[in-house]
């Protein structure tokens, strides 16, 4: 740890302000709370929103895991880990079960998280109504009025056009029966993990200066229709070529030489642990 920085880089005043925003976000599940986003020595769009949330709640006792699209060792994940480790000295892990605090982009770990864990998700675009309502002020009024018909209409249009809901990642959800929320670009496969979870989910958008939360045991329902129900990506009978897991979320690899497709776990921490144990299957919440 580099003593020339304040613990977790941000000054105490900034951390307190961000914590206040977090507490408000937890009190109003799914509601976007504006906060005074700080400059960090990391480019916006590299997860400064998530990073500020992490830096504001991290303590010396925490064990941190950072993942980027499921991977522990992408350039982005590594540079965030280096930065937090340098300014806090906390332990770093790749094991989802060991971590007390996980910062992630685009994925939720395969193993269900517990009530002693917090998952921080980086958010590029926090406004779930952005596609249907051009002005952010108007979108805020729609949230205030709980007027979400335009979000359902967007799904209806997809059905009119393509015969099904084509939306993939960042599937809009209704939180606690009140606010429609963008869960960040996690796959549909991960969306149901938000529902009635044991852990706390925090969402940080740096560029758009918003923080929101899904507290433990909160209802999170994907928007859908009676006759077109939400469903997750079909992983079929795919197996991971590294650990043999089935029924998890996969990255698809294409070998241009042989023309072959193969699959490996998107959650690399889960995959290496699974391979070590020699397990071929680990039930996540989505596998039956």
């Amino acid at each position, binding site marked *: 740890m580099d003593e020339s920085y304040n613990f977790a880089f941000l000054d105490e005043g900034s951390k307190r302000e961000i914590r206040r925003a977090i507490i408000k976000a937890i009190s109003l599940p799914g509601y976007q709370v504006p906060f005074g986003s700080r400059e960090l020595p990391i480019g916006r769009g590299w997860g400064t929103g998530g990073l500020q949330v992490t830096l504001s709640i991290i303590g010396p006792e925490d064990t941190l895991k950072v993942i980027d699209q499921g991977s522990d060792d992408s350039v982005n994940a590594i540079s965030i880990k280096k930065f937090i480790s340098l300014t806090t000295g906390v332990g770093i892990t790749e094991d989802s079960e060991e971590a007390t605090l996980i910062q992630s982009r685009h994925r939720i770990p395969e193993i269900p998280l517990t009530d002693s864990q917090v998952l921080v998700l980086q958010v590029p675009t926090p406004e779930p109504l952005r596609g249907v309502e051009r002005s952010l002020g108007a979108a805020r*009024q729609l949230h*205030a*009025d*709980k*007027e979400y*018909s*335009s979000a*359902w*209409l967007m799904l*209806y*249009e997809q*059905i*009119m*056009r393509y015969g099904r809901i084509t939306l993939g990642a960042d599937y809009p959800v209704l939180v606690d029966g009140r606010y429609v929320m963008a869960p960040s670009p996690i796959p549909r496969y991960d969306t149901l993990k938000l529902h009635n979870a044991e852990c706390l989910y925090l969402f940080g958008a740096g560029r758009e200066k918003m923080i929101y939360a899904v507290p433990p045991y909160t209802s999170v329902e994907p928007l*859908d*229709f*009676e*006759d*077109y129900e939400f469903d997750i990506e079909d992983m079929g009978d795919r197996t991971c070529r590294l650990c043999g897991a089935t029924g998890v979320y996969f990255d698809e690899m294409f070998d241009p030489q042989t023309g072959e497709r193969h699959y490996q776990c998107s959650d690399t921490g889960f995959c290496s642990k699974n391979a070590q144990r020699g397990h071929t299957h680990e039930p996540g919440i989505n596998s039956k």
Partner: protein
Amino acid sequence: MNQALTVNDLTVRYGNGCSYCRDISNPLDKNRCPHCKSVWAVRNISFELYPSEILGIVGESGSGKTTLLRSLYFDIPATSGAAYLSGYSDGLVDIMGVSSQQKRIIRNSLLGMVYQNPTQGLLMDYSSSGNVAQKLIAAGSRNVGSMQDRANELLEHMQIPLGRVKEPPKQFSGGMQQRVQISKAIANNPPVLLLDEVTTGLDLSVQAKVLDLIRSVQKKLNIAIIIVSHDLAVIRMLSDRTIVMLDGGIVEHGLTDQIMEDPQHWFTQTLVHSLI
């Protein structure tokens, strides 16, 4: 109460107003304050709409017709005044004073609106079916199959071919766009329908067709309609009673036949005479 809608002293002002123009006894320059330039687009308007009648509102350009309808549909906030809908709390609660969430509920289930300009009433890039479904979704429907059926039924009644319901209104003629707007406006069987210059800009033959459709909708649904137009010919063809507006106020009202035969106010006289 047995009126479908009661409007009391409704005023809509663009601008802040000043001590001069807030005093109703001081004359304005038409509808504009000579001092602060605020526009009193609708001023102290009161009227009643009876169940299943067609009420015409006629007036020259700028007289406040659109502003009146849009404030009743909550697009534009009323500056003062009250309105009561028999379908809402038995007509006992002033709908101008309720929360914006309540206003959306009223708008989604108790009112239908056809805008003067179709781009205001329709999502031009969405399917026509989706445009109708928007109103159904807003009123709580979550069943795609039944919404598609309902949209088809309404659009077909408005003579949009079933083969075209997936097309966006931007690919339609003006007359077709107005018919999509009407389908959308009546999707939830609202007791009150507001029509703003629904035939303006259409060819005469298309106008006649749209007016016929409005009459058939009124008969079929037994709905109360306010139809606004600067064209007395349109009003005469459809409405049972007529209100004449000038500079934000009502100058004459009565049975349409009576107004046509014996107009009292000089402005109404000019309108009637220009018809012949």
